[in-house]
């Protein structure tokens, strides 16, 4: 029996390399087939479209016309700026909040954990239609938020939340954070569950304080998941559409117009310029590529 095992082990070792390779490709085969069909062709098409100019069905090859048009398009530049602002402000806030909540909820001694967890996750499932109606009515000039803030003496006069560019952006950032913090929290919680509790025990016995345990044990083990959420959040914010379409419709005066909303307008609202819309899409692709690459780089030096 034991001999059989040893022999089997020895023989298996020489086959592992090839078997692994085979399984490697086999396991990802269904994915590659599906994506090859339903991703690659459309992407190639849209790449081809990005060099086309024209309206609707009448288009012709335009070379770099679309790219030049990008540089002279005031609306595109506005959309780019807005998207950038949302990215830089909102993503870090959300990641940090989600981490804090996950850390707090990972404590087995905390009471009502189930309730808090469900509550903070609830915004992710609340329907887009419902919460945009709600946010619009809460932040109206005579809405709940203004009333509350004046009652609490936080300010003297009502703010026109949705009528002022700065405040409209604030509302959007609040809406996104409200909606997606719970989502990221779930990923962190699941990952924290995979950390062996005995490590914490050992550290506590050694006298390591709570915040240090978090910083030196939890965070490093969460690195892969944190990288995942930052990349995903970056992509999500660069493609921001739902909130700005439903709550502010890109206004006022295009202050909440994002790249995705602009693409949407170019494709559906305006005289359809599918070629130019595709070009703007590739701006998003390039931004994502660059930012993701940077994020991977930052995470890399710690990777084993």
């Amino acid at each position: 029996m034991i001999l059989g095992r040893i022999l089997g082990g020895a023989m298996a070792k020489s086959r592992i390399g090839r078997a692994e390779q085979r399984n490697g490709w086999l396991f990802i085969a269904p994915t590659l087939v599906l994506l090859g069909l339903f991703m690659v062709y459309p992407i190639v098409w849209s790449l081809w479209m990005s060099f086309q100019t024209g309206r609707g069905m009448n288009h012709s090859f335009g070379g770099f016309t679309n790219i030049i048009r990008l540089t002279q398009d005031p609306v595109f530049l506005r959309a780019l700026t807005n998207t950038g602002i949302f990215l830089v402000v909102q993503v870090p806030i959300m990641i940090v909040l989600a981490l804090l909540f996950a850390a707090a909820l990972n404590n087995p001694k905390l009471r009502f954990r189930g309730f808090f967890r469900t509550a903070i996750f609830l915004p992710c499932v609340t329907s887009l239609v419902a919460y945009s109606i709600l946010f619009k009515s809460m932040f109206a000039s005579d809405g709940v938020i203004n009333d509350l803030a004046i009652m609490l003496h936080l300010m003297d006069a009502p703010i026109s939340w949705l009528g002022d560019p700065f405040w409209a952006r604030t509302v959007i950032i609040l809406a996104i954070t409200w909606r997606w913090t719970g989502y990221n929290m779930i990923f962190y919680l699941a990952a924290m569950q995979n950390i062996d509790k005995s490590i914490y025990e050992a550290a506590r016995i050694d006298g390591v304080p709570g915040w240090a345990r978090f910083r030196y044990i939890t965070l490093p083990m969460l690195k892969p998941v944190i990288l995942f959420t930052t990349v995903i959040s970056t992509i999500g914010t660069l493609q921001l559409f739902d909130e700005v379409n439903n709550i502010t419709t890109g206004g006022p005066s295009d202050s909440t117009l994002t790249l995705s909303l602009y693409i949407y307008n170019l494709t559906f609202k305006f005289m359809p310029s599918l070629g130019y819309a595709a070009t703007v899409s590739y701006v998003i692709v390039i931004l994502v590529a660059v930012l993701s690459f940077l994020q991977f780089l930052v995470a890399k030096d710690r990777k084993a």
Partner: protein
Amino acid sequence: MSRVFAQARSGLVYAGLSLAAFVSIFPFFWMLVGTTNTAPDIIKGKITFGSALFDNITNLFAQVDMVQVFWNSTFLAIVGTVLTLAISSLAGYAFEMFPSKTRERVFAVLLLTLSIPFAAIMVPLFVMMAKLTLINTFTAILLPSIASVFIIFYFRQATKAFPHELRDAAKIDGLKEWQIFLYIYLPVMRSTYAAAIIIVFMANWNNYLWPLIVLQTNENKTLTLVVSSLASSYYPDYGVVMVATVLATLPTIIVFFLLQRRFVEGLTGSVK
């Protein structure tokens, strides 16, 4: 002294969580209140319960075949989730467990595809589906979504925490790769799967743009499309809209409830 500090900090934690919980729940509460009020009251901002719940429900069911629509969304969500998890988690596992230079490059390309806004590939995808005569079918909705780079990415990152010793031990025991995946990996990564099920179910359930473009008939509509159409008349009946949105939200909450224990309550000892 440190006891007081600890208690104060604990109090702060509870306060913070409570505030977060309140802010998170309030809109849902408002939705529930809305189901019981009439449209004019909702617009005025009434936040107390009314008595129009029965009327709103009756009106909704009179206007829309809710049973059919609910079934459509449920079917798509469940089948989509099962298939997506099966195919994508397998790929995520493989990318991490069987590293190779070529596959790394493939992975990088796949990641890039995440950045393409859907609006950009929608038209060619539609043409493709038309050529396959799949317009207005559920197959057309499922096919592009079940290989999800997002989930592949997620599982790959999560697999980094999967101990290699387990796999080595299993191989010495003579298990084949697919058996290792099914019998060792799956149980150990339960919490990851639970989280993924929630995420994918939610994504499929709330899927909006592609079903809008592909589905043509009333019988095939999903719940998200119905809610959107209800909410955009010249004078929408917000009471009805609220009932529809609450119904639209319920399944995702239920799925979350069922699974959250599983991935949080502990796999102590399972790694051993």
